[in-house]
Structure formats: C-alpha cells, structure tokens
C-alpha cells in the first residue's frame, strides 16, 4: 500500500481547496491536493458570473464599501447567516481580488468615458471616471445595492481557476487528480488523513497529514435535476459525516433555480425572463401571471421555481422521456436580440439541445442549484467534532450564506474563505505536532477493503446501485424540493428510510475492477441517502419559511422560534439523523429585519434576545437608512 505524508491534505482541488493549499505552501508547509478530476475541471470553473467584492471602482459601484456588502449578504441570507463570518468575508474580499490580480487573473478593468447598460429591457447611460482607468471593474449581479461583481468576460470561474492552479504549480504543491477519498482516518478525536481510491487503477492508498481540509463543493447530484457537475455528489461530506462526530449545518438549506434545460439541467440565465421571455405550459399557454399578477415571470428566483412546480403539479407539465417540464419562450425577442444580448443562451440551445430559440421552445424545469448546507465549521473553518479537520467553500457551512446565497457571493467565498481558513490552518500547523496511530490506519484501510470486497461479490445483497440512487433522487424531487409541507416531507422521510435499507443491500453487476464507476457510485450510495434524509428530516422539523426553505404550511419566517441553525449528526449504527440546534449568530451587527423581497410575514424574535446580542457597528445606522 502506498502511503503519502504531508502537513496539509486538501481533499478537492477547486478554488477553495487550492486557495487553502497555497496559503499553507506559502508559509513553508507541504500541502497535497487530491481531486477526482484534473483541478481545472473542478466545478468552480463553470461559474461564469463573477466574484463580489466592494472595491467601488466603477461608476455604478461608487460609494460601495464592505459595510454595504455585509448588509446585502446578511439580508440575502434571510438573517440565517453567522454575522461574524459575513463580516470577515466582506472585509477580506477586496484584498483577495487584488491578490488574484497580482497572481495573474485578467479581471476586466475600468474603461473611462460614456457607455451603455441595460436594465429591465431599458437602455441607460453611465460615465466612468478618468482617474479610475485600469482599476478592477464590476458588473451588476443579483440582489446587490451596488455594482460589485468582479469578472473576466463570461468565464470568471475558469480564469480564476487557471490562475489558482498556476499558483499551485509555482509553489510546488502536489495536485493529484483521479484520486477519490473514500474514508477519513481518525481515532475519535483527531483526524489523521484519508483512505483514497485511485481512479486510474482502483487501488487503495493512504494519505496522512497533520491537518485535513475538505473542499469538495456542493452535493447537488443527490437531486435528480441539478445544475451541478457530475462530480458534485457529496463525497467529501459523506466521509466526514460518516465518522458520526461531524454535523451537517442547515441541511434543509438548498437553493433552486427556475430554468435548467431538460434533459441535462444546464442553466439558462434569468436574463431570458428579464428581457421578456415567457414561461409556457403543456398547452403552450402562459401561467405565471395567474399566480403572480404583478411580476409574473419577473418574480424572484425562488418564487418562480415554486410557481412552476405548482403548475406542473396541477397537471400542466409537458411529458417527456426525462420527466415533466415546462417551456421557456424567447421566440418573440427576435434574431437580433437573441444573437447579441442572449448569445450564451443561443449557444446552449444550439450545442446541447439542437434547438433554435428563434423558432422553437426551450424545455426547462426548476433545478437544484447550490447547497448552503455543508460540513459545519466554526469561523476559523475548523469542522465541529474532529481536531485537525477543516472545510472551506461550498462543502462547508461556514455560514455566510444562511438560507439564501446571493449571486457572486459563492465564487467569491471560495477564494476569500480559502485565504482566511488557510491562514488559520497555518496557525494550527505552526503549533502542532502529532503521532500517527498505525492501528487506526490499518483498521480504516481494512474496513474499506472489506466494503469493496462485499460490494464486488454481492455479500450484502444484489440490489442495483443505479436503481437505488434513482429512488433517492426521486424521493427528494417529490417531497423535498422547492415546495415543502408536512405530509410531503413525512412521506419523503419514510421513503428514504426504505431506500437506506436498500442502499445497504446493493451489489455490483460488473466486476468492479480498475477505475470502475459502478463501484465508486456504490461506495457513496449509503452516505448519499443519509445526506438526503438529513435534508428531509431537518426540513420537516423547521416549521417556518426562510430563504430557500419554503414551507407551504408555515409561510411566515419565524424568528421567535427558528433563529437558529440545524446540526444534523448521524451516530454510528443509527437509522435516523440526530438533530440539534445552535444560535444562528453570536452577535448582530444588523438586527433581524425584512430582507426586502419575496414578501412574507415575519414573526419577530424576542426583543431582549436581540438587544443583548446587538453590537455597535457602522452598519446599524446604514441598515436603518436603507
């Protein structure tokens, strides 16, 4: 058995993982990154929009500051975030963007003079100042008060990923691809590394480290319809959660997007609707105006997703071999508009559907998009429950997103959190020596060898891996998607209890030799079902609506009872998750209030509770004014 040793083992080599590794390597520590795919293929590279940072260089960003970015983030989270973390993030973001520029990111820059931009189909004029020429510019994105999103044309994630990976190469960090961690090695207190399956040979390897960081992104693939890459399957969450010691933070907090194309769920931009595109049902009739007379197709992301789901439930969905969907119609916008303003959409339709949006309808459905849920860490990125274990990026519930993540904040989080948490890991490594318990290592490896052997030889049963996975995905889509209610969630939990039993009885159809995909899927299946159950059970217990978590039977946001964060543990041998709760935030710079869109009643929190935790901050005044 090959054994590798380093100071820091990073599982996942997307932007968060590589940023953490860079911080350690810059400070003289040996860092190793593992990735299922070559680092530049990470899902980070798919993010096109940009990264939020209050640089305030461009005309429409004038007057922006970290306080305003902080306010937007807290409001966006529907007061579900940790305000200490949101503050760390907003303050560090501008420095991090400048650092990326120094490392080589070709950020778009301010071009002085007059230019035009579009908002709600209307044309506006703006003037960029001469003295700001060449500074990092920003675009408008999502629910922000100022233009704050730094970008590189239409490929921000890709460009930043290239630079970050270059930086790793420069620092001599070992980035090993086609390696999948299948278990952590720990003694109940301390994490020592991971057992890893090589996806070239199928062989097991051991990676030992003083500190381990899980940066494996989201787990959208446990839903049937998701915009996530196929590698976002929860592998990192599963190995940590499986220890029985590490909780998932806010599992019920999952974001959806209204328009993924069918069948592959690639996202088409909200700009389609913004520019006048309409949604049609199986009779090719508009329906959004029936539910939302004022805003119709222009209602917020979560509202549109909900109405689409509702309409399909009413039997108005279009049947297809891939399940039901609706239509997006942009035919009336005309050739000129489609080939210029919506070029990206045009290309997606052409490349992945073979549809010409000038003459044909685009099949769309609401789709899982982002997991605010994740491995619960403290503000230093240290995962609850195991010493030496860290997490950053979408994999973590560091919790700057709470119950709704703003556009441009996720991509920024990867590098900003990666930098902050990387520095904390360096502090930890500087004062830390350890001994590796060979008994622990051996038993961890043996356990994985046994699991693989049992799966290959059908020792637990012969149920089909993909059938069981489909059952889990269907259950979540049915009972725990954009709409949630008691009955649906109870059914979902019950179904998943059955699915869990089945997941323990799968056996391979193929021989499982070498880089076998069926084995990879089988190894994580039980863990995936557990993640699914954590989502459903937590959603069932949270009897309120907050951000993306929407209960039809409890439409109000209930700060009185639910200003807290769910922690979902899975104890060894258990058949159900164990839920507990902690305060959402240790302090308020911005006391709970209206998030400013989406409507809904709020049941206020206890005044004394809020007052005791509210600290003096410049934000309190700005927040009042807004």
């Amino acid at each position, binding site marked *: 058995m090959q054994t590798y040793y380093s100071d820091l083992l990073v599982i996942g080599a997307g932007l968060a993982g590589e940023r953490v590794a860079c911080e350690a390597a810059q400070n003289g520590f040996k860092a190793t990154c593992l990735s299922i*795919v070559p680092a530049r293929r990470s899902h980070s*590279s*798919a993010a096109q929009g940009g990264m939020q940072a209050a640089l305030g260089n461009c005309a429409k960003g004038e007057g922006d500051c970290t306080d305003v970015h902080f306010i937007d983030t807290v409001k966006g989270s529907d007061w579900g975030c940790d305000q200490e973390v949101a503050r760390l993030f907003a303050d560090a973001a501008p420095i991090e963007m400048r650092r990326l520029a120094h490392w*080589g990111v070709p950020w778009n820059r301010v071009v002085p003079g007059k230019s035009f931009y579009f908002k709600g189909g209307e044309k506006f004029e703006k003037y960029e100042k001469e003295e700001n020429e060449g500074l990092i510019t920003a675009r408008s994105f999502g629910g922000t008060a100022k233009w704050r999103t730094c970008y590189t044309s239409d490929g921000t994630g890709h460009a930043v990923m290239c630079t970050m990976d270059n930086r790793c190469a*420069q620092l001599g960090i070992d980035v090993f691809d086609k390696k999948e961690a299948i278990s952590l090695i720990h003694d109940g207190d301390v994490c020592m590394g991971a057992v890893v399956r090589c996806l070239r040979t199928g062989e097991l390897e051991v990676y030992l480290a003083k500190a381990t960081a899980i940066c494996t992104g989201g787990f959208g693939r446990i839903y049937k319809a998701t915009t996530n*890459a196929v590698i976002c399957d929860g592998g990192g969450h599963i190995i940590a959660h499986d220890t029985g010691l590490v909780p998932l933070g806010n599992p019920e907090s999952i974001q959806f997007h209204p328009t993924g194309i069918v069948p592959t769920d690639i996202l088409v931009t909200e700009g389609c609707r913004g520019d006048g595109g309409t949604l049609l049902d199986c009779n090719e009739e508009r329906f959004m105006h029936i539910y939302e007379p004022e805003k119709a197709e222009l209602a917020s992301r979560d509202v549109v997703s909900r109405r689409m789901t509702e309409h399909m439930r009413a039997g108005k969905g279009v049947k297809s071999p*891939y399940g039901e969907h609706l239509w997006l119609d942009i035919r009336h916008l005309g050739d000129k508009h489609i080939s210029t303003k919506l070029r990206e959409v045009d290309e997606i339709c052409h490349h*992945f559907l073979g549809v010409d949006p000038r003459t044909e309808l685009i099949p769309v459905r609401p789709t899982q998009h982002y997991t605010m849920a994740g491995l619960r860490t403290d503000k230093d990125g240290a995962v609850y429950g195991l010493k030496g274990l860290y997490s950053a990026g979408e994999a973590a519930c560091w919790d700057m997103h709470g119950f709704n993540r703003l556009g441009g904040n996720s991509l920024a989080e990867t590098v900003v959190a990666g930098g902050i948490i990387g520095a904390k890991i360096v502090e930890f490594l500087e004062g830390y020596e350890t001994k590796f318990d060979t008994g622990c290592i051996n038993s961890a490896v043996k356990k994985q060898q046994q699991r693989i052997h049992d799966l290959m030889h059908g020792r637990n049963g012969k149920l089909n891996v993909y059938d069981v996975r489909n059952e889990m995905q269907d259950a979540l889509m049915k009972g725990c998607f954009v709409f949630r209610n008691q009955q649906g969630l109870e059914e979902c939990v019950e179904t998943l209890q059955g699915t869990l039993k089945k997941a323990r009885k799968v056996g391979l159809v193929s021989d499982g030799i070498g*880089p076998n995909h069926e084995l990879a899927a089988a190894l994580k299946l039980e863990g995936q079902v557990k993640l699914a159950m954590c989502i459903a059970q937590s959603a069932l217990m949270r009897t309120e609506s907050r951000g993306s978590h929407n209960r039809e039977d409890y439409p109000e946001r209930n700060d009185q009872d639910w200003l807290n964060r769910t922690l979902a543990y899975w104890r060894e041998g258990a058949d159900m998750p164990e839920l507990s709760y902690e305060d959402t935030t240790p302090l308020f710079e911005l006391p709970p209030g209206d998030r400013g869109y989406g409507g809904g009643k709020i049941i206020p929190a206890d005044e004394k509770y809020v007052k005791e935790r509210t600290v003096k901050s410049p934000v309190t005044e700005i927040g009042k004014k807004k």
Partner: protein
Amino acid sequence: MGRQIKFEIFRYNPQRKGDVPHMQTFTLEETQNMTLFIALNRLREEQDPSLIFDFCCRAGICGACAMVINGRPGLACQTKIKDQPSKITLLPLPVYKLVGDLAVDTGVWFREMYAKTESWVHTSKVFDPTKEEERMDNSIAEEIYELERCIECGCCVSACGTARLRDDFLGAAGLNRVARFVVDPRDERTDKDYYEVIGNDQGIFGCMGLLACEDVCPKGLPLQNQLGFLRRKMGITALKDIFKKK
C-alpha cells in the same frame, strides 16, 4: 419511436488480467434532445456498468469528456445524437495514456506542460494588501482572457500530426499557454527566456502546419494564429541572437 442507434465502443481495461482491446456493440433508442452524455450514461446504467468514460460539467466548460467520435476528436457532452448517423463509433483520444475504455489521462500530460512552460506569472513584485491594485488596460485583460479560454480537453493535441510522432511536443495547447504569458505585462520574462522553452522542435518548430488543432478545438480558439505569432517573435529573437554573437 426514435431511431435505433448502434454504438461501436472501444473497450479495454488495463487493470483486468487478460483483457485485450476490442470493439463492443451497444444499441439504444434515440430520445428527444439526446446527447452523448445522456446516451453513454444510459448505456452504463442500463446495459453495462463496467463501461469507463469521463464526464464532469456536461456543459462544454471543463473538457473532461473529449473522445474520438466517428473519427473526429470532440466533446461528448455537446455532441447531439440527431446530428450523427445511426451508427456511432467511439474511441479514446490518442496521445494520452489510456485509463480504460474511453477515458484517458489528460491530467498528467497537462501538469507536465505547466512545469515545462513554467505556467505562472513571473514577477519580482511582492503583493501588498494595503495598496490599490496595479492598473491594466482593459483591452489587454481581454486579450489575455481570450488565450485563457482553453479548457484542456486535449482534442488539439490528439488531432496533431507532430504530437502523434513525438511525445515531447508541447502541442497547440502548450504553445497557446506560452502565448498567454507573452502578452501579459505582469510577466517579466523576456523573449529570450521563452526562446529557451519553445525555440525548438518540441515547441514552435515542431509544428507541420496541418491545422487540425484549430479545426477540432471545441472552443474555436485561433490556435494557428498564436503559433504564427510565437514563431515570428521567436524568429526575431533568434536573429537578434545570431547578430549579437558576431
């Protein structure tokens, strides 16, 4: 009912004792808007779970699913079945080491390329977090980005005559990478420094000008232009060097 599509797929798992490379036939009914991503996943999940292939983003952004589709390197995710004949032959990309069936090892190849070209900004400046960013002209930023759009799918290299003949050839992807740093004002390397890396048969003089790299690039990058640009620049560098010696 849709067409019955016949797939001829290359099969070989180097980890399985006694396995020999061979072609295997599968049949699948075409459904609406079907891509090779949908088809291959269905084949694996419904017919043969031992089938090895790579997908990641399935949206033409990451480059993981490059393979030879009916004789031509391309991305499987953006290959629509309706544009293909009813018989589809799938082979792994040549040049790269085979992992199994349709999956190849592009990761190691590209990592070696980064090392060879020292693929990072070479600067003597130190980052100061208290200072404003260094300014840059937006048109230069856009020019750099255009060269950074490469998704490292490997199609250009596997379609390249030179790369098939000599395994140390940097290929269009490698040369494009060098061009990215040549245009970046933050990089302090001189033309002479670059000449050391690419002024040889492994670099710009290895290209036979067959243009296949540009033909198959799924992102439509102007790879031959970049090669021409570098050749001109390196040619001048070489001449300067000759005259200096006199």
